């Protein structure tokens, strides 16, 4: 594997991991209350809505990772990285403001889903921003 190939492989791989985690966390790893069978009277809970949006953002991140793997360079690559940053950033207001999660700190969504998703989102933003900065400094 050449040096340049390795460089382009690391970021898609890391984003694929964060995207995969964003898909897996709200459903399987640290499920939201509904998925953890604590559904309130069978209705869709607020945290479940948040979890479903997270799942969608995870899929979007996976697509971004694949696109990054296929794209060698140029503005399209930067655009995809921006999208990955945005997906990671959106998670914070999604969980902390609206729709949010359950109020009780003992609920599965508060105990597990929220910290795990925020941690993964933080890592995703860090990876994508670092890659953006590096690609810009390389171009400069």
């Amino acid at each position, binding site marked *: 594997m050449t040096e340049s190939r390795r460089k382009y492989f690391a970021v898609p791989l890391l984003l694929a991991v964060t995207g995969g985690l964003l898909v897996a966390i709200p459903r399987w790893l640290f499920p939201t*209350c509904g998925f953890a069978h*604590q559904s309130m*009277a069978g209705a869709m809970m607020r945290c479940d809505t948040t979890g479903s949006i997270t799942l969608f953002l995870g899929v979007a991140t996976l697509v971004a990772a694949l696109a990054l793997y296929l794209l060698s360079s140029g503005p399209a690559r930067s655009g995809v990285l921006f999208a990955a940053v945005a997906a990671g950033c959106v998670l914070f207001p999604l969980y902390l403001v609206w729709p949010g999660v359950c109020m009780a*700190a*003992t609920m599965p*969504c*508060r105990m597990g889903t*929220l*910290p*795990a998703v925020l941690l993964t989102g933080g890592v995703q933003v860090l990876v994508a921003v670092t890659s953006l900065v590096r690609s810009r400094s390389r171009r400069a």
Partner: protein
Amino acid sequence: MSERFGLAGLAVRMTVRAPLKLFSMGFLLALVSFLLAGVVLVRSGVEEATARGAKRLGADLMVVPQGAEVPLGAGLFGGVPVRFSLPEGIDRRIAVMPGVLVAAPQYFLSSAPASCCETGNLLLVGFDPSRDVTVLPWLSPHVRLKMETGSILVGGSVMKGTGAALRFYNHPFTVAARLEKTGMGYFDNAVFIPLDGVSAMERSSGSAGGVSLRVPWGRPSILLVRLAPSIVPRDMASLLERRYPGIKVLTIPGLFRENRLRMEKLARGQLPLAAAAWLFAVLGGGALQFLYWRERRSSLGLLQAFGCGKGVLMLLFGAEAFVLSLAGMVAGSAGAFFVLRLFASYFAVTAGMPLLLGGLDLSLSGLPWLWLVFAGTMAVEAVIIMFLMLRREPADLLRGA
């Protein structure tokens, strides 16, 4: 490129442009630091939460139903909704005993399942403001509970601010204040409702097809007892248990006994763990550095050929290892802090222990010596590896021999 290109600049360039070395060394030390800092932070966090929680309970004794110790732990430390009741009228009888200053009853309830889920499954604590020793004494003097408006207090982890409207069992409440975080689920995850409010909530419940609430009036879940200074809590606890069957009386230190024992165990394991982590770092870091410099020996030969003495190279790359390791250690410790902070509730509920982390600076204040020991070790290793490598002639190093 800067016009000056000195040795320090060279070392920085050789470090930051070697992502593999940067990542592997930094990651190794960050991992070690993460584990060690995690243990240290858990220990200090549990101790801090225990101390603060014990102080905040404001009582000398806690009276609970016999056999309720296990759910009590989940409720107190995790803030998980639990329900149990003392024998009828026990609060009145204990309140009039000589040596008892205050006997404050509390009713543990749980919020009703609601499709909106906003409230989730909350621990609701009904308390008597006139006899309270636990919540009100710690509130700012500016906070006033206006009972007519259905004022309630929420724990520091409940995601509702002052003035927010909440509805339990079809009864509207207003958040009068948010309590400061203590690390104990009982304080942080619960909602404290004055008994008037509990009564109103009970009346409102069941209306409009909602879930009805039955409060076991006269049979509180716990009784917090404050004693006269001359009374020995343990003696009073024994007396109460003998006189009133069906109750368990816990002294406040006794309440945290299990946690203390677990923390003592953790404290005993801390030194062997640190030693094992150090050994791991020595072996892992040594192997990484050796492999890296073995691969890069021609660079060393080149630097020697251009006039860098052995001492300079040892100092340069020893310093590099020190800085890199220190950065890894700091990053690992900070990572442990943030992860623990994020997962504090998860830890408290699953481990059944209170946990309170202070600010980043305060929490990590005990760790710099650990960082220095590890970073120093890595630096010494780098110097030894340099010394071994530089025993060869520059010509041999240049050839990669």
